[in-house]
């Protein structure tokens, strides 16, 4: 068991085209650190200066992590993390 992280199309260049990757960790931060060891560069597209990038949305089990601790949001085996680039513009 581990945490499943669903990857948006635009970041699949970091996962060899895979729609989802798996990682271990008790927090979102740890999971991202873990998957970055096998998919180098992926974390940097999601995190900047130890905080979530402004135009990336991350959800743990349907909950926007901005309301549940950000990178410190707890994760457990079987959880699903969804990464969605914000749809935005001017």
């Amino acid at each position, binding site marked *: 068991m581990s945490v499943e992280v669903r990857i948006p199309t635009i970041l*699949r260049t970091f996962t060899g085209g895979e729609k989802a990757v798996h990682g271990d960790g008790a927090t979102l931060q740890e999971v991202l650190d873990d998957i970055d060891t096998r998919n180098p560069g992926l974390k940097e597209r999601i995190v900047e200066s130890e905080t979530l990038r402004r135009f990336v949305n991350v959800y743990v089990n349907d909950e926007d992590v901005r309301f549940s601790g950000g990178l410190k949001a707890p994760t457990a085996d079987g959880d699903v993390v*969804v990464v969605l680039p914000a749809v935005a513009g*001017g």
Partner: protein
Amino acid sequence: MTRAIAPSVTAVLKIAREHVDAMIAHARDDHPDEACGVIVGPEGSDVPTRLVRMINAERSPTFFRFDPQEQFALYKEMSAAGEEIVVVYHSHTATEAYPSRTDISLASEPQAHYVIVSTAESGASQWVRSAYAPSASSMVRSRRKRSTSRNRPSEANRWQE
């Protein structure tokens, strides 16, 4: 030399009249704030079949952003139905239907076409299919990169909001 992206360069995006009318109606409804939404379709089809109005969480005349919770609900709907975003649309309420720098830098759906509706001229909405697409430099090279636009590149520096 034939490039790998050639097939999609020759492909033409078709948007149903009712969807065009619905995008324009949405833009008018939300004027002077920017309106935004999507037309989704079967994954890989490049055929837009279902229009979904999205909330502009910014409620701004110069910026739009999908509400993160609503966007997640859309994601789940699309995943369950085997759909993806085919068209992302938004409105410009004080300027022409031409992608701003912000539009270009934040575009992050490589499979999508980006449509802008302008309500700048009251009662004379216009729409164009724009050519902006996610940057190839950082991530995925978009097969929409070479889409045509009737806009002139020399005007690019005029649109900054």
